């Protein structure tokens, strides 16, 4: 089922895979890994923002929480990095259960504020519990062990970590295309209606929240292993903000748009930092404003819609009648041109 669905759209899929594979040849490999990690993080946040209609403003708790747990497992248990990363992801998902339980009943700004508050609690715990987290110094020297294989070269580590990112993205894609994902969209569009159709809305939101946190944790854990350290930056609220910004730049509800947003911001940050530019936020902020004004559905969303509109024009709809959407005459077998879906399944 998954394979047949994937095979149905080979060109975008192969292009994406190809870019993922050649990325460390094109740019500095540690930056390539950052992009991959942030891309997964953004997709995880889009699962909530775009597909469940919840704006999370505290996902740093899961990204950073997992970074610490992953680091601790790798440092103290000496386990191979995949085990550490998966352990970090599981811890993030576990942490999301109580936070999600208390926040998923809320909507809009209230949900954003409560998740932010919880993330700040995680930040303060990480800051205060110096014995465990290293406080302001963070966890340093996290090893990248994989059964004795030397992964110290970031170029090789990128390829060791990439399968986790791809698996996470595949999982997110699978979720939004599943019946479960459709219910999430129903919850997003109208929670009361979804309830009246027999779905326990709060439970679905909680499940989406935990899934999203788990995927964020996967990304955060890999990020910590990739950098060899986990610091307070990872649990700070700006991380929560940055990932939301990536999703908005790429396009909310597009899933892959976040990857684009991640690439843009990470690469831009790296470029400006390397060039010795001090006010990076000024540039990224300006670009953010411009993109939000020009591309109302994000870059990916706008380009995708334009391509679809073009494809729709190239293949005219069958039937002689261009269609009147409010035609109430029953039984007239028209297939109007307006049948071209404005928003077909992703």
């Amino acid at each position, binding site marked *: 089922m998954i394979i047949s669905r994937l095979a149905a759209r080979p060109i975008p899929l192969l292009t994406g895979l190809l870019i993922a594979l050649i990325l460390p040849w094109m740019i500095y490999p540690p930056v390539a890994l950052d992009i991959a990690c942030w891309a997964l993080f953004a997709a995880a946040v889009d699962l909530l923002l775009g597909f469940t209609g919840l704006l999370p403003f505290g996902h740093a708790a899961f990204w950073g929480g997992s970074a610490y747990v992953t680091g601790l497992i790798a440092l103290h248990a000496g386990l191979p990095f995949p085990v550490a990363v998966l352990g970090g992801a599981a811890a993030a998902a576990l942490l999301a259960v109580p936070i999600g339980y208390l926040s998923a009943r809320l909507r809009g700004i209230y949900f954003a504020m409560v998740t932010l508050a919880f993330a700040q609690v995680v930040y303060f715990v990480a800051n205060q519990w110096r014995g465990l987290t290293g406080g302001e110094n963070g966890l340093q020297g996290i090893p990248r062990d994989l059964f004795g294989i030397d992964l110290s070269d970031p170029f090789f580590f990128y390829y060791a970590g990439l399968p986790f990112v791809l698996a996470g993205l595949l999982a997110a894609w699978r979720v939004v295309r599943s*019946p479960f994902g459709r219910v999430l969209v129903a919850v997003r569009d*109208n929670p009361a209606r979804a309830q009246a159709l*027999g779905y*326990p809305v709060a439970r679905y939101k909680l499940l989406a929240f935990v899934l999203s946190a788990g995927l964020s944790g996967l990304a955060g854990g890999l990020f910590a292993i990739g950098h060899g350290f986990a610091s307070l930056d990872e649990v700070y609220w700006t991380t929560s903000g940055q990932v939301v910004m990536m999703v908005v730049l790429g396009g909310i509800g597009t899933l892959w748009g976040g990857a684009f947003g991640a690439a843009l911001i990470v690469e831009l940050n790296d470029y400006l930092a390397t060039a010795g530019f001090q006010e990076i936020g000024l540039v990224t902020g300006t670009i953010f404003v411009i993109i939000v004004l020009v591309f109302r559905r994000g870059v990916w969303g706008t380009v995708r819609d334009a391509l679809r509109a073009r494809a729709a024009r190239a293949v005219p709809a069958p039937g002689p009648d261009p269609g009147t959407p409010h035609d*109430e005459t029953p039984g007239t077998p028209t297939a109007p041109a307006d049948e071209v879906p404005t928003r077909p399944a992703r």
Partner: protein
Amino acid sequence: MLRIEDLSAWYGEARVLRGVSLEIAEGEIVTLVGRNGAGKTTLLRCVMGLHGAGGARAAGTIGFLGANVARLPVHRRVRRGLGYVPDDRGVYATLTVEENLTLPPVVGPRPWSLDQVYETFPRLRERRRSPGTKLSGGEQQMLALARVLRMGARLLLCDEPTEGLSPLIVQQIGAILRDVKRQGVTVLLVEQNVHFAATVADRHYLLAEGRIVRSLDNDEVRAREHELLEHLGI
């Protein structure tokens, strides 16, 4: 099948329902007629459990299939076989017709298959790949009805299914409701169109100022149509 006893509902301080009691037997089509603001929609929302947010509350017994469901959350009532067709039709604009049909879970012992749905609603088959936004009012109404039938709901609560539709579509919906009844589904219909109500329903309750003021059969409705219309302000 449905037995409501002493149901009252409030929006803040305003009391909208004042001790409503009514009963519907299995396989019946019963309409609830009344003026705007009489509490018809509130009554349906109370049965579904949708009345209760933002200062709204309700009290009373709602017996469905022998059990009081008044304290159950909405989705559990649905799982017991209550199907709601809201006045705004509740069609998901971002989903296609077929996705709208297959979205909800199957809750009853006799869910309609997609084929059965398309046989009864041929228009929906033609439009099955159209997004919800591209449907006409009549098509949306049919989709909303078809969706709860596909879930296998045992009691349909339909809120003004004929509102704003052309006479031809109204006729079609009437035919469909009679067909639905033949298949053993019970229907509670909120309706302002007294004439339509008399053609599809077995019995009628007249609701005024939050109370059931009269129970009528079809002959009475036909005989006193003018009086009723006057009462309803139509």
